[in-house]
């Protein structure tokens, strides 16, 4: 599903974000990427959604070589990957429903499709009753669930979550992780970038550990080893 072959990203001579990354994530996997701050986790996420182009190497998503993807094709790629970033927020002046609808509107989805998909994704994240609330009327965990709902509107094959639990308390963290696991059960590939050892150790799933831009361990039933 996601293949990185010898990928390096060099921002400038003294900032080599990632170096010679070889990575193969299969369909339906749940993979955590961990590592200290500044080791290139977000860089990998940005490479996968073609927000950045690799300096070296090859990236293949679902059999599609996106290494030299054209600007006009990027939206097609983005609709196959649901993105949950920490700084990728909700629009404060739109309701939950409008926030989710917005993602569909700007992709040219017809009204009928919008009307059927929104209840479905709200149900997945368990926010059916809160469609007409504004983000400020929701808890941090609920807001993040709306973001996840929004990432699901195109029925992506991949969910890419970069620190989705960033500033949430333990209970909300648990809820978000359970939600990601539930989405993974439907067959969606989940890539989770996190700092939180508790989460990783509880998951008992594949863990990839980065250090200074290099993969130092890749374990099937991994633990947080730093």
């Amino acid at each position: 599903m996601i293949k990185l072959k010898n990928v390096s990203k060099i921002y400038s001579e003294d900032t080599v974000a990632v170096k010679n990354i070889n990575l193969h994530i299969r369909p339906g996997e749940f993979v955590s990427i961990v590592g200290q701050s500044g080791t290139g986790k977000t860089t990998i996420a940005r490479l996968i959604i073609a927000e950045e182009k690799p300096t070296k190497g090859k990236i293949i998503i679902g059999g599609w070589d996106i290494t030299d993807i054209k600007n006009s094709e990027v939206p097609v790629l983005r609709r196959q990957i649901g993105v949950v970033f920490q700084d990728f927020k909700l629009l404060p002046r739109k309701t939950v429903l409008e926030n989710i609808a917005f993602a569909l509107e700007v992709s040219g989805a017809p009204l009928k499709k919008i009307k059927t998909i929104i209840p479905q994704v709200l149900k997945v994240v368990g926010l059916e009753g809160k469609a007409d609330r504004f983000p400020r009327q929701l808890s941090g965990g609920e807001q993040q669930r709306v973001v996840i709902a929004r990432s699901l509107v195109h029925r992506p094959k991949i969910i890419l979550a970069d620190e989705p639990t960033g500033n949430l308390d333990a209970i909300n963290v648990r809820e978000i992780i359970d939600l990601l696991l539930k989405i993974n059960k439907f067959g969606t590939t989940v890539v989770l970038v996190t700092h939180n050892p508790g989460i990783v150790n509880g998951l008992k799933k594949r863990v990839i550990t980065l250090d200074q831009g290099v993969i130092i361990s890749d374990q099937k039933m991994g633990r947080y080893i730093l």
Partner: protein
Amino acid sequence: MFFIALYRIFKFGFQNFWRNFWLSIVTVFILVLTLFSISVVYTLNVVADNAINAIKEKVDIDLFFDPTIPEDKIFAVQAYLESQPDVKAVEYISKEQALESFRAEHQDDPTIQESLSELTENPLPATLVVKAKALEDYSNIVVNLDNSEYSHLISSRNFEDNQVVIDRLSSITDRIYQVGIGVSLIFILVAILVVFNAIRMNIYTQREELGIMRLVGANNIFIRLPFIIESILYALLASILTILILYPLLSAVSPYINNLFEGYDFKMFSYFTANFWNILGLEIIISVVISVISSMIAIGRYLRV
């Protein structure tokens, strides 16, 4: 599918306009100033062209004939003149016609009417009115005529060379025109900068929406086109406002301008009403080109896709 996309793009475009309402108003205002200065230059050009034509049209040579000259000799002169390549038209005015029109011209003047009725004989000479094809042909025609066998038939001639007046008028209008174009160019430059800045500000205000759009895989048209629509909206509003200011103003000054054109068929305001759609179209084209170009520059610079 196509229409829903179009509807949304327009909706976003209008939202952009409203979101920075005052900035939009200022932008439209600057565009109005630009269009207005261009319109003034254009008006000036129309009036000046017509003024020069009016003067040129008044130029002719009047050839007067003694009463003793029989009509067929005059016709021979007319035929000769008409055969000249640089002559456009030769009009024959007989003694009787001359008297008729003289009477008609002074019909409100009782003393003239009285003295005319006392006359036993028509004092007015027969006339040939010669019009040349071009202004510079007149001297040639006169020289040729003087050297021809017909010269002795002509008792006198009247030729006012208006070239000096025309030259002076052209040089004045040319100067005003140049200044006008200079001012318009400055306005166009300012307008480009102002529209550019308005779109840049709007891109900045919407950075969150734009970020979301990119990450959820919005089509490029949904990201870019609303800003183009917004700039077209500026242009359309500015064109309409300019017309709304320009026409009442033209109608107000029109009588004064028309007075300058006594005896020549030019009605300024009717010119502008007859060409209404052309002028509106021109305003729209100019302002749309200005604002779309500058919004595209802003989009290119500040809107990563």
